[in-house]
């Protein structure tokens, strides 16, 4: 069993909290501190975002965060080093969320080897759908590749993704890009039900889950929530590290409480 699978299995029906933030925003040393704060405040899995110049699935918050990170000189190599460093003191499952091009340029084989060695547990590559993932999957020994499903996914795609995804299914709660939204999409419950009927993996809900109320609703109908833009916004808004860590802790605690009352 992988770290991700173990962690999710250990929840025994409790809802999972997955937290996302962009590596290198505001800088890589802060990224290590932020990881510790998120871990301490109850995240079950941490998704570390790899910045990309053209993040097509991201709304303005993560786009701006990616941009700041790249301005700081963040690279995939440095992020893998960051994970190795974090792994010395943490056993929390770590997923890298990245666009495909940085991985392709790194070398798919070399990337897998270096990531596994550093202690990365899984990857989410939104622009590498099952149709294009064959080569990477063949090389990804030791990494759980988490695939996504969306409100537009057809029954046959749900079945296909259910077969190849590892760890969990990332359900995109809305037809849109990442970012905080006023409310969850209509039809969310029906779609998650539909997926859960044909897939045995846990289904976690992300994109547009921004506060405790939405997290609570999303968790009631799924196996957990993924929160990204709201965290990135919080980090952006507080340049003082002590205050940032405090606000982050409060926010995560409120989510944790909302999903597992």
């Amino acid at each position, binding site marked *: 069993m992988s770290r991700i699978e173990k962690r999710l299995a250990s929840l025994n029906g409790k809802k999972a909290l997955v937290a996302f933030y962009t590596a290198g925003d505001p800088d890589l040393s802060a990224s290590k501190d932020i990881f510790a704060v998120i871990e301490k405040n109850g995240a079950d899995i941490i998704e570390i975002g790899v910045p*990309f110049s053209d993040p*097509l699935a991201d709304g303005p918050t993560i786009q701006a965060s990616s941009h700041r990170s790249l301005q700081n000189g963040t690279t995939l190599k440095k992020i893998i080093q960051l994970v190795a460093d974090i792994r010395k003191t943490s056993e929390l499952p770590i997923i890298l969320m990245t666009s495909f091009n940085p991985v392709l340029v790194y070398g798919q084989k070399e990337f897998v080897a270096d990531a596994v060695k550093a202690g990365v547990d899984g990857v989410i590559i939104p622009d590498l759908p099952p149709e294009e993932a064959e080569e990477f999957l063949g090389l990804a020994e030791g990494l759980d590749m988490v695939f996504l499903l969306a409100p*537009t996914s057809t029954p046959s795609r749900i079945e296909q993704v259910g077969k190849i995804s590892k760890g969990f299914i990332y359900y995109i709660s809305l037809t849109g890009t990442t970012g905080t939204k006023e409310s969850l999409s209509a039809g969310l419950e029906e779609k998650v039900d539909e997926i859960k009927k044909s897939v045995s993996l846990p289904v976690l809900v992300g994109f547009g889950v921004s506060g405790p109320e939405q997290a609570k609703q999303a968790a009631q109908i799924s196996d957990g929530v993924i929160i990204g833009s709201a965290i990135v916004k919080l980090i952006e808004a507080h340049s003082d590290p002590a205050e940032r860590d405090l606000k982050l802790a409060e926010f995560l605690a409120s989510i944790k409480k909302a999903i597992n009352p």
Partner: protein
Amino acid sequence: MNKHNLPDAKGHYGKFGGKYVIETLMPALQELQTLYEEAKEDPKFKEDLSYYLKHYVGRPTALYFAERLTKHLGGAKIYLKREDLTHTGAHKINNTIGSALLTQRMGKKRVIAETGAGQHGVATATAASLFGLECDVFMGEEDMKRQSLNVFKMRLLGANVIPVTSGTRTLKDATSEAIRNWITTVETTHYIIGSVVGPHPYPMIVRDFQKIIGEESTRQIMEMEGRLPDTCVACVGGGSNSMGLFYPFLKNNEVKLVGVEAAGLGVDTDKHGASLTKGSPGVLHGMKSYLLHDDGGQVTEAHSISAGLDYPGVGCEHSYLKDSGRATYASITDAEALEGFKLLCTKEGIIPALESSHAIAHVAKLAPKMKKDEIILVCLSGRGDKDVNQIADRMGVSL
């Protein structure tokens, strides 16, 4: 027989192409492919398309023997395929009419587009007006400045022009923003991509709508010269006019195909748009193709005097043709393109688009080295009205 029957079933051109997009869009791409395959076999669709191409766009466009230019250069005979004479003044309309008809067939009421020089934006706004569709065009703020005339035209035609302020504020970011909008509106909106780029089936559909350039050229040159040209030349940004010209000639191995990229300030500087000449394989905007990017996989800025060639990627079929050796790719600097522009103005009385001026500038290098009985067929992809202000600025003339 045409041996080049690509893409394959998965939308790959050798190792290039594909569908590198988020799950949300995958079903729409599948639907588009099915719908397109039905449409292209449907006599009614074919009839409608050729009706509008003939009576509205003004096809077939002329193939014109550029006699004074030929004499001036002193070598091969130069023929111009006059896409600049189409309604809206560039080849882009061939694709937008076809795509608007597909949109109608889908029952969708809204289209979106990205635009660099504004030619594709104007062509999409035109087709949207013609077929009563709502139209939003994404355009980089920087390009809106360079191409203010086209911005105004799009608005006159009833389209919304949405300024894109992210990244380099040019075509790359306009494309990214259009894709993001499509991710959000895919259930009601058709995205009309302006070039042979993007996820499958787009590069194939746009090529198919543009191949009329090469089909007409073949027929016309056979009538005028009784034989095929020795060399075809066209500019390459995303590469739709060149793909449209090249495609019908792919089976004729004796016809050389030459694409001309933007060398900007020079391919050895970091200010150019020559993805095929200087890039390496990468994934951007839903496809694998040659790409300008750094050693961390971050896409780098392209540069060209011409907004339409100012793009760090290139159509995936061109990447395939480059690697297979069937086509070759040259590049022309900003300064050379301006010379090409002036040459056509003064020798033939034709004001070409800056994009097409790159092709002319390359012909000016090529023709003198060829024999007088050889033939070059060059795609004059668009007219230069949109560029006149920018060129006046550069010449220090205030209008």
